[in-house]
Every structure is written in C-alpha cells, then in structure tokens.
C-alpha cells in the first residue's frame, strides 16, 4: 500500500488529518464490514489521521470508545450492524460523552435512520459507496465545527 512516507511531498500541503500542533486526529472506526473498515482506514491514514481503534459491531464500538476516551477525536459509525446497530451505539456514546464527534456511515435508502442519528447528535453522515473526497471533506468539516 502506498503510504505518505514513500513519496516526497512536493506541494507543501498540510495533511488533513493533522492538527495545527502536528498531532494526528485519532479515529475509531465502527463497521461490521472488514472491507469498508479497510477502505476508511486507507483513506484516513493517507491523510495523516490515526486510526486508533476498530470495532465490528455497535456494542464493541461503544466499549472501545469508553476505553479510548478521551484519546479519540472522531468515530465513524456504520448504521446496519449485528448485535447493536449504529444508531443505538451512537446514543450510548453521546450519553457517555455528549461532545463526541460521531459520523454515521450509511447506505442509500436509510434516510430515516440518518435523520434520527443527526437528531441524537451525530455530527455528520457519509453515504456509501464511499468517495475519498467526500469522506475527507465531511470528516474535516465535522472536526472543525
């Protein structure tokens, strides 16, 4: 896999996933699909984010969040997952930390759930199939908000 270190950076553009002070934003990825998880990881790490945790279902996601807190800046949360779905997991996370930055990952056709999540406190949502530009845009904008 290509990593940032392999190529000299000609345009001195700051990586999106790095704070002003140079520390990377730390992300927890919650998704039951290994494939999507990997994709998010690739996109994020290529921009300097640090994926500090991966969970395969909602319950594990909540647990990981509590474990990592406060050393986690952002959570990407799939909606359809076994055991505990993303919306319930979001609820639990917000209950635990009302300032949590959670971004929902949803497939097309789940508008109602996305709306519900936004009302509960999700900062943004991303629609699958994932597009690198959009993912980064929405994540960065949620972090800056």
């Amino acid at each position, binding site marked *: *896999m*290509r990593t940032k270190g392999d190529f000299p950076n000609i345009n001195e553009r700051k990586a999106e996933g790095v704070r002003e002070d140079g520390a990377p934003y730390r992300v927890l990825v919650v998704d*039951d*699909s*290994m*494939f*999507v998880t*990997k*994709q998010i990881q*690739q*996109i994020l790490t290529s921009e300097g984010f640090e994926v500090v945790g991966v969970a395969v279902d909602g319950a594990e996601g909540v647990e990981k969040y509590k474990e990592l807190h406060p050393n986690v800046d952002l959570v990407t949360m799939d909606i*359809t*997952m*076994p055991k505990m779905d993303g919306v319930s997991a979001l609820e639990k996370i917000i209950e635990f930390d009302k300032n949590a930055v959670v971004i929902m990952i*949803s*497939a*097309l056709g789940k*508008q*109602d759930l*996305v*709306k519900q999540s*936004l*009302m509960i*406190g*999700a900062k*943004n*949502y991303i*629609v*699958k*199939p*994932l*597009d*690198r530009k*959009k993912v980064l*845009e929405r994540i960065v*904008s949620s972090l800056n*908000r």
Partner: protein
Amino acid sequence: MSDYLDPNNEELLKDFYVEAEMQLESLERNILVLESDSSNEDAIDEIFRAAHTLKGAAATVQMTELAEFTHVVEDALDEIRGGKIKVDGHTVDVLLESLDIIKSMLESRSEGTVYGGDVSGIKEQLRALFEGDEKNKSVLSKATAKKLPVTKVQEGANSETFLVSEYEILELREAAGPDVEILAVRVKFNPDNPMNTVGGIQVFAILKSLGTILKTEPEFEKLYEDTFFPEVVYFLTGESTKEGIEEKAFISDVTLEVEVLQLVLGNEPTLPEVATNKTGIQAEESIDDLVASITSEIEEKGKEASVDLKDLEKATQTMGDPLGPAGRKVEDPPEEKKIIEERSEGTKKPQNSGGSVLRVESKRIDDLLNLVSETVINKATFNQVSNQFTENMNQLSQIQSSYRQLVKELFDSLPDYMEKIERGVSVKDVKKEITEGYGELLTIFDGVQSSFKGSINKFRSTAQNLGRITSELQEGVMRIRMVPIAQIFSRFPRLVRDLSKSLDKQIKLSIEGEDTELDKSVIEDLLDPLIHCVRNSLDHGIESPKERTAAGKPIEGTLLLKASNEGNMILIEIFDDGKGIDVDKVKQKAIERGIIHPNKLLTDVEAYNLIFEPGFSTAAQVTNISGRGVGLDVVRKQIEKLNGSVSVVSTPGKGSRFTIKIPLTLAIIQGLLVRVGQELYAIPITAVLDSHRIKPQEIRRIDNYEVFNVREDVVSLMRLDRIFNIPTEEKREHYFVVIVGSGEKKMGLIVDQLIGEEDVVIKPLRDHYTNAPGIAGANITGDGTVSLIIDVSQLLELGQKQEREARSKREETSSRKY
C-alpha cells in the same frame, strides 16, 4: 468516482471477494433456514444485512451490475422483512436463483470480465414477488404518484406561508418573548446530493446547537418524512451572529445557499422581505404551473403504467396457464443442467483460488510466536553448550599437555629410580617417591571428565527441548492451515435441496461434526468427491416416496454427513437410509464388465466396494445427476490422491454408509523408508500392509509372474529396481518384501533393505518431473539425502497395466495357435 480502485488496490479487492463470499454463504444458509422456518426473524435480519452489505461493497468497487441486481434483491428482502411477502417455496426458489446469479457475477468479475447473462427475467420475478403479492400495486403506485405532486403543491403553499407570514411572525415573536432577536435562516438544498432528503434535518441539528429553533417551514414533521424540500426556513433565536450561522449551516454539497434574515421588532415588514415577496410570488406562479404540468403528466404515466401492468399480468396468465405443465417440463432440464454446471464450477474453483486468503484465529499465530521465542531461547542454550564444549576442549588440551609432561618426566626418571634400587634404596621408598611425584597422573582427568559430563547432559536436554519445540511448531503451523470442515459441509444443504427437488424425493439432511478441522488443501480437494458421494446416495440410495411408503419407511429419507477425528486421520461418513446396495446385482455387473472373474469368491464387503471400480454403474438408467459414465471410481481416485481411502458398507433395505478416511494433512506423512540399490524411497505408511523377509525359493511363478504366498493369499511381486531401473545385486540370500495395498488391490514390492519409519515432509516435484509415474514427491531425510516418495496407487496401476498388457499378449499368441 472513487480513486480507491486503481490497479494497485488489489488488496482491497481481495478483501471484497472474501467478504462477498462470506455474505453469500450467510445468505444461502439463512435462506434455507427460512425455507423450513419462515417466521425466523433472526434469519431474515441476517439475510437482509448480508444483502445490504454486499450491495454497498459492490457499489464501492464499481461493480454496477452487481450493485444494481443486489439492490433489487434487497428490495424484495425488505418486503419480506416487513412481513409483506409470505415466504413460500417459490420465494425461496427465486431468492436462491438470484444468489446463483450474484455468484456468477462475482465469478466473472474475479476473472476480469463482466457478467453478460440476462438478468431481466429474474429481476421481473423478484419484482413480481412484492408486486404480485399486493395485487393492487398499480393502484398503489398511482397513489404514490399522486402523493408526490400533493407535497409539491404544499411546497408552493409553504413558500407562500413564509412570505405572507406576518401573522405567524407575530406568533413567533410572542413565543420568543420581547426584545429577542429572531433570525430566519433560509437554506437552499442541493437536489443532487445522494441523500438529499436528509439535509433538512442535518441543518436542523446544527442550528439546534446554536440556539432555540422556534419553527421551521416546512414543519419539522415534514422534514422528517422522506421528501426532498429544495428550500427550508428555520426560525431561531440565540446569540449567534449571522455570519456564524451562515458558516456553520453551510454544508458542502448538501446545501447550496444559506441566507440569514433578521426579523426586526415591530409590525412593519422589512424591506428585504418585500423584495423576496415579489420574486417569491413569481416563483410561486411558475412553480404552480410546473406542478400542474407534472401532476397531469404523472397521472397519465401512471395510467399508462397501470394499463401496461395489467396487460402484462393478463399476458403472463394466458401464457402461464396452457403452458403450465409444459413450461415446468421445459424448466426442469435447465435446472439439472445448472446443477451439472455448478459441479464443473466446483472443479474449477480450486484453480481460481490460487492466491487464496486464509483466515486464521489470532490465538494460533500467538501460539506460534510463543514457540518461535522458545526456539530462540533454545538456540541461545545451544550456543552456551557449544561454548562449554570449547572450554572443555581447552581444559582437556591443557591437562593433556601437563599429562604428557609428567609422563615424559616419569619415563626420564625411570632409569634413576632403577639406579636407586640397584644402589640399595628400598623398593618401598622408591614407590613412595614415585607416588609423591606422579600420583597426580591417576586423577588428572577427573575434573575434565565431570565437566564434560555436565556439558553433555545439558546438550542432551537442550536437544530434547528442541525436539519438543519443533514438533509443537510443526503442529502449530499445521494448525494454521486447519479449517473447519463446515466450510464444505455448508454447501450441502443447498445441494441436497436442489437435488431432492429435481429428483422428486423428500430428503432431510443432517450434518454432524462440522467443527472437525482439516488441512485447507485437503478440504479443497475433498469437496468434489463428497459431492459425488452425496449425489450418489440421493440418486441411487434413497428411494422415491412411493417406494419408501411401499417399504414401510417414512416418506422423508435421511442423509447424514458426519465428520470425526480418528488418530491423525479424519473420518467422513455419509449415511443414507435408502435401499442399500444389491450385492448380487453388483457381482453380476462386475462379472459382466469383466472386473472380476465369475469364479471369484467375494465377501459382501468386497462386493460392495466393487462399485468403486472404473466403469461400474449399477443404475439401469443414466440420469443427469449421477451415472454419467464417470462413477465412484473417480471418487476413489481423488481420495487416494489425498492419501486417503474410501469404502462402503450396506444393509439391504436399511441403507448404506460411505466412509472416507483421509490424513489430517498432506504436507507431512508417516513413511516407511526403504533402500533399493543406492536409492532411498519412502512408502506412505498408510499404504503399507505388511513386510516380510523371504528367501529366493519362496518366490514362485505363475504365468511368468513372480508371486508369493502370504498366509492364504497370493500376492504378486514387483521389483522396484526393475521398475525404476536401478542397478542392484539381485542374487542374494534374502529379499525384503513390503506389501502395499490400496482398496482391494495388493502387491508386494521387493526392496533391498528396510530402514524404518520416519516423518516424511513432502516436497512437491516440479515441472517435467511431475510426470514420473509412481512417484508422488520428494523428501529430505535427516542426514540430507533425498528420498523419493512412492505413489502406491499409481504403482499398483502400473503393475496392473503391465499385467494386462502381458495377458493380452499371451491371449494373442494363444489364439494364434488355434
């Protein structure tokens, strides 16, 4: 779309395929669960989730045909989940068929092509599932079509209310209280956003954090519905500045424009509002026109569509009824063909999965790492021992030199002592003097001996440790390649279902021991023979419902697939409660086919196992399912390739049991090492029945063949040196004979020497060596020499071929005589 699909991203694609396969497996399993228990909600949820994930993943990797098709499937599943479709046999059929299409789509993709088959038919069937069940679907679609313009009209009204909302503004003011600034945030949304209906809520959620939202236009409940509003106005109070709100409420590619208006205290409407008022009215008019035209258009289309649908329904009905039975008949053969195709797919598979992915429990890797660290420690101990030995050596050489010195001195001084004795000094005194001077000599080696002893002990225990670790390591690595047999067993429910449908038999499949673990390579090669056996049992074993009732058995036949461990072998049994094997028929057939001699006496078990002989098929009629000329002999060949064996026992009228025995792994086997001339050979111990030491005169000749008597049996002999052309001294006092067998065949191999049993690590032979008949691979023995591993079944065949050739030659010559 996504730049994550460049050719470099094979890794991601690989993951996609692995996951897709898992989803498919889960889909198939749960659909079958659903068939027997249509109200199983867990299964439905699981199916839905799998289909959904698959769709998402397919869209991501830009397999549009796949994503599109799965989407239709998902729609149907959604209806099932909602309880709108009842799950019956037909539904399951359609779903399974769709799964097959998804499978072939994936397969084409993995081969680098795009599935070219026509899926419109199955798509129609899927749609018909949810359309057919609600007969008034056309009405429904019309209703939704009507609903759409209604909301649009409302929209028009909404913009109106916003613009002439002086009364409502008053109301808002009252709600907010005096002296509070009310902001109207007007947001235009981007209709091209894939989830454009979410925007309204998204902005709502953001604004909520900035202040109190008094009211929205359209109302909040409407926003929550699944309708897209191009423009929403939020009324809120709070401390935020206009710019702040504008900045925060703007979400790229969700919103197009954010405008914050201030509602000023007092009754007079502000200027900007008037301005917007005018344009608003214009806009309103045009919207109204648009809405009117759209409504009429949609209504027309809806009518058309409903007519089309009705026509279609009628047509299908008229077509379906007279063709009904015929249609079924036409349908059946393709189904069977499909099954055959599936089979050939099955054989193709292993080739495709050349770079296959293996999922391993992380604990197994951890265990390995543990063992590796132990070997590192072990290595350090060995280094230590080696240092000790060097030390010992140094010590020894030192002691040796002082020993030499002393001995030399002793020799040199001997004449002096002799002289002393001659001079009259008493012997006793001389002795005493010698002991004083050279007594050391006796004990000089004691120290070094004890340190040598210590080192040797340490060396021994370290070597012992190494032995233990390596065998554990070997086991650990093997365990990495171990996968549960459930991987292939999971395919059978579907197979049995399809087969029993096409055979018109009722069969219940039960599976036991699916957790039994097997080497991955073995599992891959095991699928085909297993399918063959199961197919055979279904086709020839289990009777039709009619025959079963006549025989007083339950209509439903049972098939049991069972796997278990037996030492370092795996036992797979296939039981059926069918009619069993007719021994007489088998014998008769075997005689007909020239497989056995008419006079040959056979036990029942021997007779049963004749069905594994090439060219044997007792089914009177050749069906598509089994008995296509390739019979169970293929099964035996494949199992023997895995160094296993297959046998069958049967009770007439009660059923039969196929037993397949295979070693846990292919990579390491137990072998009997033998020597022929200067060469070493390893014979797999599983094939070795017996070994004997015989004198030359015990070898007899029948028809020019060397044979030899073992108890009551006559075994033909084969000289390995002649077969492999190895120069050796054939005349000797004794010969060693290793009796090998596979199935019912037996043969004695004459070798020069038996060396012993050893673990043999099989190294495959490459390229042009692979064709060497009778050789399965190579192995490196402990002292570094190479030994070839003998493929017993091939060797037996070779021997038989020679025998047959010789026989036909004989027959030719004898017929010429007459």
